[in-house]
């Protein structure tokens, strides 16, 4: 199972770009990298997913280097409402029970 390592917490200010890096040295060939966001008192919500290079949607960008041993979630121009916990997931595949294995996440605090 590909374990992930990400910073426990980060602080930022409104309007700044935030980059959260996740390490996953044991990622397997078929694994995708997925990021979820969780606000207080809510369930996690899917943000973005990628396999290699760069993926961008209306919320974030995901940068994955060629060796895929890490990934970076980029949130452009954060606002106070982006304060949340961000989880990086890397699945083993082939077993639904491993599909959604969450680590501790990164607690992002956006300050005014």
């Amino acid at each position, binding site marked *: 199972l590909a374990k992930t390592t990400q910073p426990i917490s980060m602080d930022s200010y409104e309007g700044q770009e935030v980059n959260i890096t996740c390490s996953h040295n044991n990622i397997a060939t*078929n*694994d*995708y990298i*997925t990021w979820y966001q969780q606000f207080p*008192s*809510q*369930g*996690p*919500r*899917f943000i973005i*997913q990628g*396999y290699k290079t760069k993926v961008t949607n209306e919320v974030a960008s995901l940068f994955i280097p060629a060796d895929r041993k890490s990934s970076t979630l980029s949130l452009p121009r954060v606002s106070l409402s982006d304060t949340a916990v961000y*989880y990086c*997931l*890397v*699945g083993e*595949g*082939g*077993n*639904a*029970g491993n*599909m*959604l*294995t*969450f*680590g*501790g*996440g990164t607690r992002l605090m956006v300050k005014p």
Partner: protein
Amino acid sequence: DAGITQSPRHKVTETGTPVTLRCHQTENHRYMYWYRQDPGHGLRLIHYSYGVKDTDKGEVSDGYSVSRSKTEDFLLTLESATSSQTSVYFCAISESWQMNTEAFFGQGTRLTVV
């Protein structure tokens, strides 16, 4: 938002009593999951289901059982609740087990065992 309803949303129960939490979906997704979330532990998988009457254990299954008699309902039962099972419980659903599939989470059930 995906159609996932957890009930009850809040419950206080006494140690030793049985408790059942319900997850209901209207998306006809094959996979359903139960997680618990505690401070300092993130989300931990309790049980999951890959079809009607098909379930398997997750990381922290001791003290919990599940049942899925219909596609839309996944029940989590604490046979004899303990204080260590005080937690927030989340249900999730997905169409597939593959990683390139988005999972949707319910709003959570806050359970307090006194």
